[in-house]
């Protein structure tokens, strides 16, 4: 098989042995955690796709649409594995189109409305900085070969997302008076939603104990440093550490915004179950 074929057929190619996938004792927690990974990519991908055809310039429009497509691709891998672990015959499509809002496990940060470009780019950066650290750890250290494989595959795209978002945060933060003001406002709006990324619960503890996922406290140190460095460069003021953090998305308690996303995203499969084209 030639190299390009190998790449496109990897879904059907032989997958690494992974005892975690069939480990019944860990099944509920592993499934939940995989839904968190997949739902973050799915909901942020959907939010980002809302710019398609509405970008401020052609080049940004295409770049955002590319980013959205990358994230939807990641969703297919994470939720595909989630369905496999669950073992009830649900694939990535079923999990995406036929779950209710309370069953979604994404961070509140990624479901907030797209706002202006400042909010969109700032959120992308804040999430990418976390996503990049998470995937780097998983690709290198996860004891689940399937998780490590997905992480390694998605990390390349997320590295580019982080580079691109960082470049834009610096340019807009250290740009005109208006772009600086908007970026600072975006930061102040989004900051209280960042704490949830590192607020571990019993699912995170179980994954960390099993060696599948990292200890979130360890990730936070790297994230704080990366965000502070970039904010210095972008002449943006970092909000005070600690403080109030909105939480609940990881456990299924969402803002009112998620329902509207799902209404749009799930309409077709709900109205015409099983429809294909």
């Amino acid at each position: 098989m030639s190299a390009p074929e190998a790449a496109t057929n990897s879904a059907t190619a032989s997958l690494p042995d992974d005892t975690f996938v069939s480990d019944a004792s860990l099944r509920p927690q592993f499934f939940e955690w995989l839904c968190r990974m997949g739902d973050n990519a799915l909901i942020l991908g959907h939010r980002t796709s809302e710019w398609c055809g509405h970008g401020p310039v052609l080049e940004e429009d295409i770049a955002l649409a590319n980013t959205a497509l990358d994230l939807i691709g990641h969703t297919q891998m994470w939720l595909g594995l989630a369905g496999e672990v669950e073992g009830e015959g649900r694939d990535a499509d079923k999990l995406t189109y036929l779950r209710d809002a309370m069953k979604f496990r994404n961070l509140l940060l990624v479901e907030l409305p797209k706002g202006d470009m400042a909010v969109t780019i700032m959120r992308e950066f804040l999430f990418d900085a976390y996503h990049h650290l998470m995937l780097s750890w998983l690709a290198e250290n996860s004891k689940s070969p399937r998780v490590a494989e997905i992480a390694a595959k998605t990390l390349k795209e997320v590295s580019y997302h982080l580079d691109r978002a960082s470049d834009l945060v610096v340019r807009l933060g250290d740009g005109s008076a208006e772009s600086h003001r908007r970026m600072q406002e975006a930061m102040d709006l989004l900051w209280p939603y960042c704490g949830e990324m590192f607020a571990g619960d019993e699912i995170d503890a179980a994954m960390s104990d099993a060696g599948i996922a990292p200890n979130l406290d360890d990730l936070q140190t790297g994230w704080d440093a990366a965000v502070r460095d970039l904010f210095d460069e972008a002449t943006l003021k970092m909000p005070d550490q600690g403080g109030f953090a909105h939480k609940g998305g990881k456990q299924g308690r969402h803002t009112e915004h998620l329902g509207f996303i799902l209404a749009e995203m799930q309409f077709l499969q709900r109205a015409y179950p099983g429809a294909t084209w």
Partner: protein
Amino acid sequence: MTKKEWPLWEVFIRGQHGLNHRHVGSLHAPDAEMAINHARDVYTRRKEGVSIWVVPSRDITASSPSEKGPLFDPAESKTYRHPTFFDIPDEVGKM
């Protein structure tokens, strides 16, 4: 009305190792680094390249179409200037 536009950049992409960079089009970007990012997103989505060059369009000096005659016509009917009278060994490959 004066609307501030980003400057225009010409994009060159090397399709594979050993080939030259080829002009593929142009785009707008605020600076060189963002121009590379945009070129990656606009022109290499389907794995078209291994290397990207971007050049500010304003730095390109072009020949004037009205000078086409003096520039190019003298080369007409001088077939001896074409290297078509040599046998090129197969091993040379693409030229």
